[in-house]
């Protein structure tokens, strides 16, 4: 079976649920992508930038202290060591070169925390595109340093003041801009979300994570891992790790969603708590109310704070190829500290969800071989963690 099929479906998930004008935009992206995918020149150019500019291949690091502490053998796929500090650059470079092949002059993107925005602004500066980044007003206030980073890189950050003023609204606004300016503009979507062909394109560009990891673990351990663990917001680092292991049925895949304040409260656990629906162009699990209105998500990790999820993950869930667990804000901070203290590696709060889940996994997976995607570094989150620490201390004193 081909995943996705020609209509962009992973089983019953995916598709192209978009206004008629966007259908046209998508057809162009799809046509050029399929052509470039086969092109040796395109591949060579992308490989060049991934290696010489972004810093691939990334290390697969045996986390000995963490392994001893948890009683499992844990390897970390170090996407945090990439230029700009997260896996987002893999996709931004790929789609940047795609936009060049399409002859576009301008790139737009949505961003929540600013990580994808920074990656896109970086690539636009490198490849010479005009760059406009849509960001919710609320996120702009929370992530002022990343806003400044994007500006330093020459991008314009456009505040979005509609709806909930967060990532999903930034996404809507990027689509609205795209239909208006499609002739010279490419929309560089940041996760394996949205209408076909985006889930396919982003997965393909992120699959470099899993391809490298597979070769590296075979070299180091002479066998495949028992478990792969990765955090899931939209799900691009997870699908990038999982996909090259899809056919290795013995390798168990675990995606970790953000339980936020808890599964009965505000969270971003779309696969665990959502219902199937159509949101931002794709049929997938969605956090929604009984009327089909999209709910606001919550996670302490800005990159997981989204009420939708990539359709391929919905397919993995329903076909039981992967299982999806959750980690609360509080547990994620414990994971953040655990890795920082044991290994001297400060993980992004998103990746901290995957790390924190290892504690739960260690109870049933003693001595097993586990490979975790460390999707980003945590410098950007130090302020959030410090604030959380302060409010926790105040509570204790009371």
């Amino acid at each position, binding site marked *: 079976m081909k995943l996705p099929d020609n209509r962009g479906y992973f089983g019953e998930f995916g598709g192209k649920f978009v206004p008629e004008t966007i*259908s046209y935009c998508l057809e162009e992206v799809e046509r050029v992508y399929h052509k470039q995918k086969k092109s040796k020149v395109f591949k060579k150019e992308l490989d060049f930038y991934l290696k010489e500019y972004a810093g691939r291949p990334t290390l697969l690091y045996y986390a000995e202290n963490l392994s001893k502490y948890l009683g499992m053998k844990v390897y970390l796929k170090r996407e945090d060591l990439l230029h700009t500090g997260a896996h987002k650059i893999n996709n931004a470079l790929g789609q940047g070169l795609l936009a060049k092949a399409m002859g576009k002059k301008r790139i737009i993107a949505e961003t929540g925390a600013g990580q994808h925005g920074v990656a896109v602004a970086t690539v636009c500066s490198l490849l010479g595109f005009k760059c406009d980044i849509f960001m919710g007003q609320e996120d702009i206030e929370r992530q002022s340093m990343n806003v400044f980073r994007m500006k330093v890189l020459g991008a314009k950050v456009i505040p979005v003041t509609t709806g909930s003023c967060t990532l999903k609204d930034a996404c809507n606004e990027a689509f*609205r801009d795209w239909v208006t300016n499609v002739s010279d503009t490419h929309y560089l979507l940041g996760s394996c979300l949205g209408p076909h062909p985006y889930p396919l394109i982003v997965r393909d560009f992120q699959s470099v994570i899993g391809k490298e990891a597979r070769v590296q673990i075979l070299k180091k351990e002479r066998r495949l891992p028992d478990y792969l663990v990765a955090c899931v917001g939209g799900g691009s680092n997870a699908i990038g790790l999982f996909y090259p292991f899809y056919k290795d049925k013995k390798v168990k895949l675990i995606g970790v969603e953000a339980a936020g304040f808890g599964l009965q409260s505000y969270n971003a656990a779309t696969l665990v708590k959502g219902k199937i629906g159509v949101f931002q162009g794709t049929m997938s699990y969605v956090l*929604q109310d009984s009327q089909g209105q*999209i709910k606001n998500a919550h996670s302490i990790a800005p990159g997981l704070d989204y009420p939708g999820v990539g359709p391929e993950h919905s397919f993995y869930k329903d076909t039981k190829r992967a299982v999806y667990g959750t980690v609360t804000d509080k547990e994620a901070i414990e994971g953040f500290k655990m890795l920082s203290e044991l290994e001297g590696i400060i993980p992004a709060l998103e990746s901290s969800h995957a790390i924190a889940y290892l504690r739960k996994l260690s109870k049933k997976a003693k001595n097993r071989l586990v490979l975790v995607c460390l999707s980003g570094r945590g410098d950007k989150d130090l302020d959030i963690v410090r604030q959380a620490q302060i409010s926790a201390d105040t509570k204790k004193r009371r």
Partner: protein
Amino acid sequence: MRLKEKFNQLKKKGKKAFIAYIPFGFPDIKSTKGICLALQEAGADIIEVGIPFSDPLADGPIIQQATTVALNKGATISMIFEAMEKLKKSLKIPVMLMSYYNPILQFGRERFFGRMKKAGIGAVTIVDLPVEESLEYKKTAEKFDIDTIFFVTPVTPSKRISKIAKASRGFIYYVSVTGITGPRDFNYSSLKKHIDILKKKTSLPVCVGFGIHTKKQVKVISSFSDGVIVGSEIVSFIAANHSKNDFLKKLKKQILSLKGDG
């Protein structure tokens, strides 16, 4: 009344359709009924009622803000049907619904079309359901004899136009611009060219929407199409005037003026 009957009636009189769009539940749930009746009295030929959605991808700020208000007031699909069932006797002109797909999907397709029929609503258009994804939906609509209206845009390739024309019933909604809803200026000759091409491919009426907000635009665009859909202009008028005295009277006057009858 059904769309087909309405367009035949207009054709006999040598007139074009004036389709008025309003989001349900704006400025509040109760006001929709009165607004619908006022639109009818002012001579609107068809009323398009929008189902509010939290993430209206194809809409500009005017309609976005109105739907946010409607959702905050608690507007639901069931309320629309309740209101429309009550209006069934007094509304003589066709009513159609406009929605994004997810609210309908969650309401249930069968249940949705069943309730439409009961409320005397004969047509629906879904913004984010392109013809390729519409197979099941079309089947259910046909079962309940509901007209499905699809969109054609300035960038829709010729082959696709034929596919869309085949799937449409009632009329074809021509989106005047590559962009979102909200006031615009037009290049009439290019618009006319596109409409002429489209009309060669279909026997259905072709109505033009998105961006139309002046009396002149209504007049000129009606002259080379079968009708116009006016949305944002009416919504912003409602937003600005709903709390004033004689609001409905003012609204009627505004519609008459847009139609060129006032």
